């Protein structure tokens, strides 16, 4: 009797172990949130104020984007920091002017920041980052739309375009405030290449 019971029990244990290991195989392996960092050499952050309705194309030479996606690959966190003093409008006279107090006031506000934890996506997979933009001491809610594409090389590309109202940040004050010559709307567009930052376990 004892022997029989033992045999049955051990059979059950085996069964349990087998089922458990099978179940284990069905559960996907654990994943982690991935963070991405911009490759400054390969990335571009452009801006274009308008003069009499025509664009003056410029860019920021120094900026960094850190983007985090969660286990499901959904956007979780986006933070962008821009060295305002690296703004280049392709003309030394303009570059001096925009660094001054009436425009970016770089001595007091050398950095601009965008940070976002709230995202929506549309049917085409376009992501909308509803975050906060901080320039020249002003913080404003701003939505940055972008497309996100993984490359076969393991990098990812983030692209988008938006319009900002320079008067919301008091960029171009006094005689420039009206927007008559230098328009109030400034186009901003970016093409950022990002590399995954290996998760440190």
């Amino acid at each position, binding site marked *: 009797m004892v022997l029989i019971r033992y045999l049955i029990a051990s059979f059950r244990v085996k069964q349990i172990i087998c089922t458990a290991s099978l179940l284990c195989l069905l559960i996907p392996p654990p994943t982690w949130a991935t963070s991405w960092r911009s490759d400054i050499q390969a990335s571009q952050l452009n801006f274009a104020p308008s*003069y*009499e*309705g*025509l*664009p*003056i*194309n*410029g860019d920021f030479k120094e900026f960094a984007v850190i983007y985090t996606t969660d286990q499901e690959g959904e956007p979780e966190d986006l933070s962008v920091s821009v060295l305002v003093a690296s703004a280049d*409008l*392709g*003309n*030394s*006279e*303009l570059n001096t*002017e925009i660094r001054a107090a009436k425009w970016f006031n770089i001595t007091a506000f050398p950095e601009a920041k965008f940070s976002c934890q709230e995202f929506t996506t549309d049917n085409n997979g376009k992501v909308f980052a509803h975050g906060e933009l901080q320039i020249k001491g002003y913080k404003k809610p701003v939505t940055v739309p972008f497309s996100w594409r993984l490359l076969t090389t393991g990098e990812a590309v983030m692209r988008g375009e938006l319009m900002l109202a320079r008067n919301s940040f008091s960029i171009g004050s006094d*005689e*420039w405030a009206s927007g*008559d*010559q230098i328009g109030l709307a400034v186009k901003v567009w970016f093409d950022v290449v990002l590399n995954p930052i290996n998760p440190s376990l």
Partner: protein
Amino acid sequence: MGIKNTSQQWGWLSKVLHWLTALIIFLQIPLGFYAESLRLSPLKMDMFVWHKSLGMLVFLLLVIRLLWRIKGTIPQSLSASGAQKCISQAAHWLLYGLMAVLPISGWIISSAANIPIKLFWLIPLPAIVGPDESLKSVAAELHHISVLVLVAVLILHIGAALRHHLLMQDNTMRRMWF
């Protein structure tokens, strides 16, 4: 007075083009110096819209003028000596050349400086070159030297016109006037 030039007379089209250009150039030179002297401000930008618009207008008038000149005749020079004819011809062609070099160098300065141009606040003029700081300096130098040459040649030109009118008392000035 007909529209066409004859061997004796300037037609009205040539006269209008000459005097309209002359008027704009006389505005253009002080305007250029004034606009350049201003600090960067809305006023400076407006002054440059005028300067660039009028300057490109000179260029347009020049093109019409040269086409008209090639298609028709021009009155014979009333200068006595061959040397004088030669000098006056050289001066006229130099003036024509400057009326091309000034607007084109100005256009290059603006484009190389990454500043878009809207003529008379209405017509966008496309960039002729991409942003380029060193090209901008070269074009600005050329523009400046051209201004100096223009002023010198104009002194000669106006002096010669006055000499014909007051000293030689010939028809040169009268046939260019209305």
